[in-house]
């Protein structure tokens, strides 16, 4: 199991050919109190950099961009009733999608934790 990070402040934890996707604690803090998460549907496919959702906070609305090509295999439905989870536990309970990665080679373009820490200073 390994975790990758994108420049759009998403994390991606790989288990086999399935990855869990969410936003980083840093991103959640920047957004402030999250009030709504707009999610795509199970079975939707997407290409890297596609918009695959929107997170709305009291002060901002921010798109979720796909860090790799893939397909959504599970949507975290708990976020609909409890968007605040994204503030409480963004890198755990408040994952957004489980996805099937189309091209594992694309992971090479993402950062590891050290790289991401450098990015956010």
């Amino acid at each position, binding site marked *: 199991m390994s975790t990758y990070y994108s420049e759009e402040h998403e994390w991606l934890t790989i288990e086999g050919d399935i990855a869990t996707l969410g936003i980083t604690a840093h991103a959640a803090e920047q957004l402030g109190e999250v009030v709504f998460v*707009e999610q795509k549907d199970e079975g939707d496919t997407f290409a890297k950099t596609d918009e695959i959702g929107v997170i709305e906070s*009291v*002060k901002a*609305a921010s798109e979720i961009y796909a860090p790799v090509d893939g397909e959504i295999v599970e949507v975290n439905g708990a976020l609909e009733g409890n968007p605040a989870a994204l503030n409480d536990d963004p890198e755990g309970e408040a994952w957004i999608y489980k996805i099937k990665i189309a091209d594992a080679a694309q992971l090479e373009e993402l950062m590891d934790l050290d790289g991401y820490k450098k990015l956010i200073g």
Partner: protein
Amino acid sequence: MPFQPVDYDTYDFANRRHIGPSPEEMAEMLATIGYDSLDTLIEDTIPKAIRQKEPLDIGAPMTEIAAINHIRAAAEKNKVMTTMIGQGYYGTVTPAPILRNILENPAWYTAYTPYQPEISQGRLEALLNFQTMVSDLTGLDIANASLLDEATAAAEAMAMAERASKSKARSFFVDKNCHPQNIAVIRNRAETLGIGLVIAEPAKLDATAVFGAVFQYPGTYGGLTDFTSQMEALHDNGALGIVIADPLALTLLKSPGEMGADIAVGSTQRFGVPLGYGGPHAAYMSCTDKLKRAMPGRIIGVSVDSRGNPAMRLSLQTREQHIRRDKANSNVCTAQALLAVMASMYAVYHGPKGLKSIAQGVHQKTRILAEGLKKLGVEILNEDFFDTITIQAGAFQKALISKALEKGINLRKIGRDRIGISLDEVTVEADVETLWGIFGGEDHYPAEAKLDFAIPPALLRESDFLTHPIFHMNRAEAEMTRYMRRLADRDLALDRAMIPLGSCTMKLNATTEMIPVTWPEFGNIHPFAPADQAEGYAQMIADLDTKLCQITGYDAFSMQPNSGAQGEYAGLLTIRNYHVARNQGHRNVCLIPMSAHGTNPASAMMVGWKVVPVGSDDEGNIDLDDFRAKAEAHSENLAGTMITYPSTHGVFETIVQEVCEITHDHGGQVYIDGANMNAMVGLSRPGDLGGDVSHLNLHKTFCIPHGGGGPGMGPIGVKKHLAQHLPGHPELEDIVGPVSAAPFGSASILPVSWAYILMCGSEGLTQATRIAILNANYVAKRLEGAYDILFTGQNGRVAHECILDTRPFADSAGVTVDDIAKRLMDSGFHAPTMSWPVAGTLMVEPTESEPKAELDRFCDAMLSIADEVKAIADGQMDADNNPLKNAPHTLEDMVGDWDRPYSREQAMYPAGARRVDKYFPAVNRVDNAFGDRNLVCTCPPMEAYDVAAE
């Protein structure tokens, strides 16, 4: 004994009444800034290169009484007739208590958009009533707090359907029975968005070929159709259904929601808002719960305050243009708050029974009229109707319309052989008899009227509406008057204190300017009345046109846009039309500085352009190298550049002419956003700087009041080469399409700007600009040291506004702009603009209308806040339990147990607060997250009000 004449001109409106500081105060203020003359200050502030060469020449000022007489003479050229044209505009009775206590009351009309909810609970409640009313009447889950007019609301609904629909189709269906102006505005919008239109009878709908469809109910010719089967067909194909519905008719008719519609729009004009030659009126939009996040405009929601009491606020703000920019749902900002408040009060005043009774009365008269006409052998084309019938007049069309005119009645000319007649709340029995007379009859109105409907039984409304207790108040005028007073007392408007909102120009809305607005000669003119009945309007519009051209350096104006954002859209559309006419239609790139207002990119998107942002340098100015590089890179496709002048940072950038030249060199046109025109009038002209188009916010620079969030007015000025591409109107038989429902937009508020210009004259207008700059520089100087002033221009001066950097407070004391904004309420002030154009800062625009004492009161309040921040930073005050974090303080705080580490005195009377006339916000700090997570956008049950009152 001969008297010594006093050196004082009582009737100098500009210098005595409009401009705040007295000559003595000006001298003191100049000394504080370090100047001995106003001219030197202006020379140091505005670069010589951008100053206009010749002084303004629009005539000498009029006294207030002379201006009133002048406008009265124009008004008398308008002929008030009995209007039966219909087509979306109907006669209505404005209840006198609403006229006087809302429309003519500065507590309501001088308020700003309720972005600061704690000091806006009154109009938020009135607007929530509006949403509840719309939601009930249309039978849909959620409504917004108004849109600009019915036609633009319909166009917004189309764009919303496109965003939300699951259908892949790129076409949109329009019911042929929509009002012509609705079709025209939809057509204009569809073209730029690349949407194909199918315009046909509802029965011809092919739901597989469209992403959505819009129907008019009742139809423009009066007919009634049940759209249930169309809605089902649309839904089967993943498409959405929209109904444009008349709210008065809906008291008798099955609601759009009950037919399965997804979105409803319409105009609430006939709920007590005068015709006004086209506006302003509040349009509405409602939709199903599923679509709420795709809905444009402002939505009032119910949240709680820090005590857990119910409190209202604007919700879902993040979908709007000021945050989402080019990804926003729409570019709309201004709503029609004042008119929505009037319409909601009309519903409170009449209640559901009263509204139903009015609707039945209108319907009954129409029914009797129709029967009488049939007896005379007149052919009526629609069997079912609410208030409108269409007559087949054949060769007699023209003669019959003229005969009606002779009797003082306007009928609607439809095509070459038909006549439309729409009755309304003001129609009396004698009018029906007159109509019979015109068609050759001599009958009298029956003493006992029949009470059956000309509405198909399946379309009769069975569901309740306006069930909330607020619409079931006692009908006594005493109750109504006190209700409106209570709400007004909760709000902080210009009649109470200065509202130093940067970029909003909250200047004086003089009473004299407001008086003509409610004259019947302006109020009771139908927008499609024959031109010879609106000669007063024509005179006013022509004179304003000439004067605004002189002020801006442009050659032609269009009064059509109903708001600044709509002006932007209209201006870009004009540029687009120009490119298309020159076979340059491929040009679709728009350069916009990062510092631009969010409406700029949102408007560019609406005309189908691609936004390319241009960076700023450290001073906040346009990065000229980046600009040049991007203009060159997009030279082939450059459509235009949008800039704001002086910049949104409040600086007169010296490079503006260069930016215009570069744009022109690459084939683009320059749009100069006129939001900051208050820093320019009489001193500099956008037309001279190289601008091709600008909009003016008449509700900023030219004194139209903000109305608590509308009406606005955003006419556009253009250079000669663009004049023929300005928005037209089908009623004027223009070729270019309209952007608004009415040819001259919200024409009935134009007297405000006209009066202002007439009473100030050339010198008064110019002096107003100078003092706006003086006041801003005075505030900046007084706050220097306690606050860093961001972005000063040459010689360290600001333009008509200044940005206070409050970001260091977050690090030193954990204090945010929000805390400062809320603490200012304790001093009785509305906050400056927050976090725009720079996050974490405050932008102050005092305007010329504020006298020195009010500026000082504000500065004292700001300085005392800076002291409190310092006390927190130094550890003398608790970091969490302090007057800033607990602000605003309410009466509830004062009467409860007091266990805070600061005194009640400090909480309640910070510097600037008035001892006797202390203003208390109605609620404690409103919880934004709670409101957006638990969205409630209709009136909460009455118990909630009781809790709040306890």
